[in-house]
């Protein structure tokens, strides 16, 4: 071996040694319960990802990082809002850090990638944020459970029913053009048209649209009784701002998917958000004592009102904690662990009501129709104005029959021809 090859090979070996080093110490079976949390800490939805981790940690801090008599250790990984990275991080958590379960992810594509991976190896994976319909419907994976989460089309259905009760008969929709939008709009349109309503028009715009005026102009002239919007993040903020500056606010009522008026969006906004109505499981302005307690504790810790992300991860952690108690924290038998999660009822969550899972691993909620109003501190928040008890992801349909219809897409919105 000459000098150069020697240098080259020893450099390579040294590099490998450094890469491998952090993993040398492996966990023992009797050690702590290890939970791998993936959240987008960089990339387009980093703000939400940060709140996910905050909510999750907040729960375990309150419990002193203990569950069922065992210590709980949390390993956080950044999925970078990218499905390939998410997949890589899931591999690291499972194969390297030897976690007992995976938790989290925000964007549907990251969650679907990870779900496909755990399908192969059986690691329990809990998704309080990922709302992609089919994960708990047509393509259900047994070890993927939506603790304290929801399916995209679950909540727009009671909202559509509420709209019909208000006497609205004609709707126009505007939504981001991707699966999460197609599913939420589909849920709304199907229930709305089956109840006798009409869809006058649907507009799909790309993510990160800065100028909504072409859409708003057309929306204004359709003669709709109500407009349904499905937006997330900055798009939601811009839509509501431009809706108000177009003079449509107060003219045509605006209803939407719950992301539109999530705290992560309206926290920094002004009067333009007032009066928007959405349907959700959680309303931070509810006067339920448990909700009040959680909102106060969260506010004390982070000086802001909790968003969907903080709430969901907090409640998801609670769900797992409750499921581990009867097992004395034993996670080694995955079958028993998953079965325990499935039969655990979430009692003490910030919702203040009891939540059960359906047979597909998706929770059944008392859904609140909530409206954005100003609270005593001058901040805007969501206050429940009506309630739909026990809404499952299948609404009033029989699950078998329902799953025979195609998944929602731009082409299929479940609109009933009258």
């Amino acid at each position, binding site marked *: 071996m000459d000098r150069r090859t020697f240098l080259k090979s020893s450099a390579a070996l040294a590099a490998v040694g450094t890469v491998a080093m952090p*993993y040398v110490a492996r966990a023992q079976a009797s050690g702590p319960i290890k939970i791998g949390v993936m959240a987008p800490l960089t990339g387009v939805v980093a703000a939400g990802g940060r709140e996910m981790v905050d909510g999750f940690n907040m729960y375990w801090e309150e419990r002193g990082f203990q569950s069922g008599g065992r210590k709980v250790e949390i390993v956080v990984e*950044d999925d970078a809002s990218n499905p390939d990275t998410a997949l890589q991080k899931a591999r690291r958590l499972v194969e390297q850090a030897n976690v007992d379960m995976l938790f989290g992810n925000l964007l549907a594509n990251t969650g679907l990638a990870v779900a496909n991976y755990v399908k*192969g190896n059986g690691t329990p994976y809990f998704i309080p944020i990922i709302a992609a319909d089919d994960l708990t419907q047509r393509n259900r994976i047994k070890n993927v459970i939506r603790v304290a989460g929801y399916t995209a089309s679950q909540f727009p259905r009671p909202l559509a029913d509420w709209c019909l009760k208000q006497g609205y008969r004609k709707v126009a929709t505007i939504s981001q053009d991707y699966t999460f939008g197609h599913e939420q709009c589909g849920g709304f349109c199907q229930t709305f048209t089956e109840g006798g309503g009409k869809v006058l028009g649907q507009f799909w715009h790309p993510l990160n649209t800065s100028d909504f005026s072409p859409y708003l102009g057309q929306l204004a002239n359709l003669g709709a009784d109500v407009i349904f919007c499905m937006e997330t993040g900055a798009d939601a903020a811009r839509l509501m701002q431009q809706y108000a500056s177009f003079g449509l606010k107060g003219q045509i009522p605006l209803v939407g998917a719950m992301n539109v008026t999530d705290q992560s969006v309206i926290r920094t906004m002004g009067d333009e958000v007032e009066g928007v109505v959405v349907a959700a499981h959680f309303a931070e302005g509810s006067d339920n004592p448990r909700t009040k307690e959680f909102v106060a504790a969260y506010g004390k810790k982070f000086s802001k009102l909790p968003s969907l992300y903080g709430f969901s991860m907090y409640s998801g952690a609670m769900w797992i904690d409750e499921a581990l108690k009867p097992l004395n924290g034993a996670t080694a038998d995955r079958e028993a662990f998953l079965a325990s999660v499935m039969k655990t009822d979430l009692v003490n969550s910030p919702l203040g009501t009891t939540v059960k899972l359906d047979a597909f691993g998706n929770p059944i909620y008392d859904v609140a129709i909530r409206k954005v109003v100003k609270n005593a501190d001058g901040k805007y928040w969501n206050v429940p104005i009506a309630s739909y008890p026990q809404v499952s992801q299948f609404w009033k349909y029989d699950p078998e029959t329902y799953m025979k219809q195609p998944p929602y*897409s*731009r082409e299929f919105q479940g609109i009933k021809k009258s």
Partner: protein
Amino acid sequence: MASPVPNPAPLPARDTGMSRLAMGAVAVGALVFAVLPLLLPTYQVSILTEVLIFAVLAMAVDILAGYTGRTPLCHGAIFGVSTYVVVYWTAHMGGSPYVGAGVGILAATGVAAIFALLAIRTSGVYFLLLTLALGMIVWGVCLRWTSVTGGENGLRGAVRPSALADGFSFYYAVFVAVAVVAFLMWRFVRSPFGLTLRGIRDSESRMRSLGYNVPAHLFLAFTVSGFFAGIAGALYAMFNDFVSPSTVGLSQSVEGLLMAITGGVGTLFGAFIGSFAIIGLENLVSLYTERWQSVLGAMFVLIMIFAPEGILGRIRRFVAQRRR
């Protein structure tokens, strides 16, 4: 027109074969990749698999950037087309993964041929921009053609052949495939055809006046490079069992190019070093900080200042100087 990529490393004088030194280095490199998985836990084996797959992509980029003097920004898209086709073929049509890989590579080659027809008229920055635009078209189609590509959510399924289900045997399958592909590429760039490409890189007008059909050579080089990128894409489909628009996105093309540059443009096997450095650092640095992208950025700046010819290029130059 100046190429946007630093000048390729000077080639060793005896160009037809490989010096004993270089052969020794290649043997050691191959040995490292062959033995390492035996020493590493499974997660690192999956990282090494990724290193090998991306090295093929970076070598494909190097055929154009290093040997032909045309820096492409569409190879992520060509790579991804193959990945999409393989996943679609196996997961949605229920086909065999081996046939799927063939179809995927064919599709990637086809896309590369179409891109080549459009792009070979240009050079320098215009080539860069045109290939960038072509890559973005593929990305846009994958994002919007929801009924086929699954849109933002992408496609999933069990793609990897069941015989290679565990990471260990899959690694060695990839290792063998990559070794064959790397040898083919090495033969390709050393062939008379490859030497003609280098002639075109150095002086297009001279090659034309010597009677070479420059556009035909460029077209073939582009298509062959796309074929190899397609192989990498097919392997990636089996590796990930998943594909989404980020696989065909601009960042994928840039990553391939950065690996080629880091290793050394015009060195071919430098791609392995580049791929190892970038993927390794990504995984190592992200253990300690979520600002790992800044660290990578700083590393590129340092490489551009101190080793603009890439790591392998720098080593070669160092050796050449010592010999003098």
